[in-house]
């Protein structure tokens, strides 16, 4: 740590790891930089002032400044949301195929003259499964990660962004399947799954990032 820039960079990394918001990091860094510059004018360098434990100093400074901390925890949100969506999707699929579909067949007897568009039927079937997956994902995050800051805001944002991501990913996956002649070869199926999972990951990361923005921009539904 030879220069003020080095010291500020080290401190900023520490604050970032602590989950200090960008605005607070910038404010702390600007104040510290001005003070270190004043000391440098008197011939005292940052190494002499701060000593070797700059991260420790940065942590103390953030504590005393009382800045808002919100660890990003992207991986935990991703793991939990994916597990929740798999469980929710599986439960929804089972409910539709084993309960709802037989029930509808028993209750309603459509005349043969009524033709239900295949796209509508597929949309309702898969749409319902996706709705269950989204609900499972959001519920899992809200329940399992409720002890983390801004989880509610993150879950609310997920409830909007995951369906939006699904609306983008589904046509892409279907288009890709069509391009490959609806092949069931492993790499084709894996690619289709990867498209959906990538959209889900993007939505969750964006939701978390959105939720951690400055206070006053909370995502309320």
């Amino acid at each position, binding site marked *: 740590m030879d220069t003020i820039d080095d010291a500020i960079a080290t401190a900023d990394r520490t604050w970032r790891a602590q989950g200090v918001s960008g605005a607070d990091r910038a404010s702390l860094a600007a104040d510290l930089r*001005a*003070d270190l510059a*004043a000391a440098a*004018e008197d011939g005292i360098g940052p190494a002499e002032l701060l000593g070797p434990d700059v991260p*420790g100093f940065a942590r103390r*400074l953030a504590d*005393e*400044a009382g800045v808002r901390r919100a660890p990003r925890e992207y991986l935990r949100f991703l793991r939990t949301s994916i597990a929740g969506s798999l469980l929710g999707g599986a439960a929804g699929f089972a409910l539709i195929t084993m309960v709802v579909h037989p029930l509808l067949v028993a209750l309603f007897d459509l005349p043969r003259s009524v033709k239900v568009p295949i796209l509508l039927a597929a949309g309702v079937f898969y749409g319902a499964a996706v709705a269950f997956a989204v609900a499972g994902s959001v519920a899992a995050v809200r329940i399992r990660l409720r002890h983390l800051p801004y989880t509610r805001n993150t879950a609310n944002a997920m409830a909007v962004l995951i369906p939006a991501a699904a609306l983008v990913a589904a046509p892409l996956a279907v288009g890709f399947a069509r391009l490959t002649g609806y092949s069931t070869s492993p790499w084709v199926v894996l690619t289709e799954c990867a498209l959906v999972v990538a959209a889900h990951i993007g939505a969750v990361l964006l939701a978390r990032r959105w939720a951690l923005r400055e206070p006053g921009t909370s995502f309320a539904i």
Partner: protein
Amino acid sequence: MVVAEDGDRQTQLLRGALDMCLLALLAKEPAHGYDLVRRVEAAGFEAVGYGTVYPLLTRMRRLGLVADELQPSPSGPPRKVYALTDAGTARLDAWRRQWRRFVEIVDATLTDQDTSRASGDAGADTPTDTPRS
């Protein structure tokens, strides 16, 4: 070993009084962070470094006890100088009264102990004629 214990004890004693001392030093004259560290050292607190003073100064600013303002520097960019606010002045007065009461109590307690020890020592030095039964 004794020196290390003395150092720890000094640190513990200082922990409860450093914020008050910083306010007192800033009440005499506003200062920027590093300047305040030099004044703390000059006052006799040798073990207190920038890593302790600057975060504490930040806390006092958060609590509204000190405020900062930019002052021109003769040899560089303007410096951020910290000074007491009205709330800081009031808090310093209250802390000063509290500290003096505390010191009086501690002094009185130590004096009582010194007195009783001195009388105990005097009693031990005086030979007694009373035979043991």
